[in-house]
């Protein structure tokens, strides 16, 4: 350690006014009252959440916001997922549970019979979206999910497909999937 590395810290000397208390209290009261009666400051600072959220102001970046998941549908209206379990494997908190079954359609081998995501367990990291080879699972800009019980917060296949219907106007499906499945 060199000498110039040494920093000497001294407690700042109090000015006469600071030692007296009363003038400083007066200054503080002035500041408090200024803020108390400034409606302008208040309105600039506060945003009322449900009425004036980032959604309504258009500040949410739809393309990469990581909100509730959805399961995409292909143009024929079938679930796009091929039940490859890549997302469930990639998931760091194991919140995705897939039960695969033999696909009734000729263009793919498997499809998800059950597809459950525990939204309370999920950390919204977006790894499932990265892992999906057919771009079937995606995160949407929807962030205000509520439920009364824990069971209600485990989203099943129907619910995830329903979220796709709800959000496809806001965030259309990505470019056609590379696998050509859907």
């Amino acid at each position: 350690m060199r000498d110039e590395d040494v920093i000497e810290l001294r407690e700042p000397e109090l000015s006469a006014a600071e030692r007296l208390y009363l003038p400083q209290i007066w200054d503080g009261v002035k500041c408090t009252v200024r803020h108390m009666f400034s409606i302008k400051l208040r309105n600039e600072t506060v945003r009322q959440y449900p009425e004036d959220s980032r959604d309504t102001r258009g500040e949410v970046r739809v393309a990469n916001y990581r909100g509730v998941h959805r399961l995409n549908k292909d143009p024929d209206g079938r679930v796009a997922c091929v039940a490859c379990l890549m997302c469930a494997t990639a998931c760091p908190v194991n919140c995705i549970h897939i039960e695969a079954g033999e696909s009734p359609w000729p263009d793919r081998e498997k499809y998800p019979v059950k597809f459950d995501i525990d939204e309370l367990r999920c950390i919204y990291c977006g790894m499932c979206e990265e892992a999906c080879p057919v771009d079937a699972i995606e995160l949407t800009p929807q962030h205000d999910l509520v439920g009364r019980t824990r069971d209600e917060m485990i989203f099943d296949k129907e619910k995830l497909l329903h979220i796709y219907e709800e959000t496809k106007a806001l965030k259309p499906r990505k470019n056609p999937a590379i696998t050509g499945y859907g």
Partner: protein
Amino acid sequence: MWDPAVKRVESILRNWRVWLAVIVVLPVLAAVVLWLALPLYKDPAANILSNPIWFPIIVAVVMLLSILTSTAVCILAERKLAGFTQDRKGPNRVGFWGLLQPMADGMKFFFKEDIIPHNVDKPLFMLAPCITLTISLIGFAIIPWAGDVHFDWMAAGETVSTQVASLNIGILYILAVGSIGVYGIVLAGYASNNKYSFYGGIRAAAQMISYELPMGLALLCLLLVCGTLRLEEIVNQQAQTGVWYVFVHPLPFLLFLTSVFAEANRMPFDLCEAEQELVGGFHTEYSSMKFAMFFLGEYAHMITGSAIMIALFFGGWHCWGLTSVENTAWWAMLIKLGVYIAKIAIFIWFFMVIRWTIPRFRFDQLMRLCWLALVPVGIVLLIATGVLSAVMDLQDGWNWLASLAVNVVVLIIMLAYAARSKTSITGRQGNMPDVDVRPT
């Protein structure tokens, strides 16, 4: 999710027109009921409104209920003002402008689980919040809310006093009740069987003992001039001369104000609950309605404290050109009461401004502020006022200016002394070694 009926009710309650209607209709309704009911009491024999025993009881019930209600409003006001000072909006969801928030808070407190921990001293644990609330409420018994009043059906010249108890030891009563106020807090700290709570209680007791002194000294300065212990006479004197005692004794008022802050455990002096150090202090173990009673007690203490301060230093119900001692009509009583309540509102606003301005003192700072600043100044002021009142009658004519001048001189000497001394009054810097911090 919500029932449409619930949504409907909510939208009604959030409409300002509904609130305006309520504010207009309620007094009209009350006036109609009074107008219908008053003839029943015109018989002087059966009349409880002019009976010197029954009238104070009516005053007590009315004022008790209004104080308990206004504590709820105070809590809303506190939260609103806290929001405003921090450039927020405060609670604004329940009802129009958040006006139903106190109701929601109260309901929450009622429905919360009331937890009594295993190892507490159960009787004392239950007793402590009751004592806190009761003691902070009984202080208002001696407050002369609206002077004397003469009703139409009473004999000419006969009046009743709008005061619960006209004690001839009024100011001593204030001191007694003020110092017993800490009892509930100490009990809560002791009964909780928790070191932090106990420490909070101890702090409250030490603080109370210290701040009784400047309070007493300030009151003595006042007593030397007014020469009576009755609060209503002190108010009458101020109303008759038109000179509030705050102009005669500005510095004693400052001492008294500081002591009331300390006694109500308000912000710069709320060491006994200091959530950052003591996890909530004396009320750590309390939940549900017991906690709410501590809360109500604090606000009731604020209201009675400011009411007493107003009676002593700010002329009580007196306002120049609006009220006088001679005017004892019933409508004058209402005006006087309005003036008093307006003054209390201003004081409570001031309490809240101070709360959001000054950070909490450290415990040693608190003690130094009391013993090294307030008590010496109080003694000097007591001597000065004593000498002055021996030389002249301070109640007479413009003589009060002499007392004001003495106060100003003492203030200047005090400030000059403090400005010259190296340390602040609370003694932070005095013999502090130079700090040498080397990065390791």
